[in-house]
């Protein structure tokens, strides 16, 4: 017997993500899913962002890591509401894990919730969690061929932060090549060239966040 099915394999996750989205909207919190390879600078970006914008807006953070709470400890020192998720081996966060985590946060009091995904350039791009936008970081030390090798994350993201530009004199990486190949995959991508270390270029990112939070509240 042949049974036509035609059902999306990710339907369960997408249902939960849609429900998360409804809850985020109800509480007027703007939610970002921050993704990158390990070591590209997600936690450093969050530290800089919190230092600059906390006070101006209420920020909450969900930290996703396979193991440890090192990142959450780094951020909670800054006085922002931080929840740690340990995925125990899973290479990405999904709607259900986020749901478990945000129940520990007072969403009503937040303007901005940033979810730091597990460091990985492949898997996280496939799973929605109810976010408003996906934001990704690519650091120049990873090489300028990454958009071609991992097109899905570049396609799904609204913002690309090219980090560690202070290292450009020491690495073989062309920023123009990154921008050109990323825009071929996703012409709507907003790109910022930044260094979390020297803080160069971060002003544009902060402004993007301010504009987004303002229009969503």
């Amino acid at each position, binding site marked *: *017997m*042949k*049974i*036509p*099915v*035609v*059902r*999306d*394999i*990710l*339907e*369960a*996750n997408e249902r939960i993500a849609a429900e998360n989205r409804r809850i985020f909207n109800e509480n007027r919190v703007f939610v970002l899913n921050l993704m990158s390879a390990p070591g590209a600078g997600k936690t450093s970006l969050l530290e800089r962002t919190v230092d600059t914008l906390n006070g101006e807006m209420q920020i909450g953070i969900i930290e996703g890591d396979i193991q440890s709470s090192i990142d959450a400890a780094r951020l909670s020192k800054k006085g922002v509401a931080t929840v740690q998720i340990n995925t125990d081996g*899973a*290479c*990405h966060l*999904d709607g259900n894990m986020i749901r478990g985590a945000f129940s520990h946060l007072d969403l009503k009091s937040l303007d901005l919730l940033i979810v730091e995904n597990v460091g990985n350039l*492949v*898997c996280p*791009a*496939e*799973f929605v969690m109810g976010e408003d936008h996906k934001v990704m970081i690519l650091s120049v030390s990873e090489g300028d061929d990454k*958009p*071609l090798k*991992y*097109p*899905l994350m570049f*396609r799904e993201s609204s913002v690309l932060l090219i980090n560690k530009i202070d290292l450009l004199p020491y690495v073989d990486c062309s920023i123009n090549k990154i921008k050109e*190949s990323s*825009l*071929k*995959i*996703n*012409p709507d991508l907003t790109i910022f060239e930044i260094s979390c270390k020297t803080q160069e270029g971060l002003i544009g990112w902060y402004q993007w966040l301010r504009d987004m939070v303002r229009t969503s509240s």
Partner: protein
Amino acid sequence: MHELSITQGLLQIVLEEARKHSISKVRLVKLRIGELTAVEPSSLTFCFELLTKDTPADGAGLEIDVVPIKLKCLNCWEFFETRDASFVCPACSSFNTELITGRELYVEQIEGD
């Protein structure tokens, strides 16, 4: 290795559909997977064999139809397949294109008795 979570979703659908149609032994599962998804067919097959053990889908074949990335140019209406991860229209160089196929990730059919 997110193929494991994807396979869990897949297996849930297969077992639900089998129950719904009173199939006690699933013989074949047909999937459509777009080239733009981050799914590796061989990992998926491995996970499927692992997770179906002692279920009505134990031993079922997995047939994966890989769907190419196809786009439509919204400027000149050209249909094209991507080369080198470029989503730009090869005919008129427009960036204004729409993805038609390549993001599929679904169960198309199951067979069994």
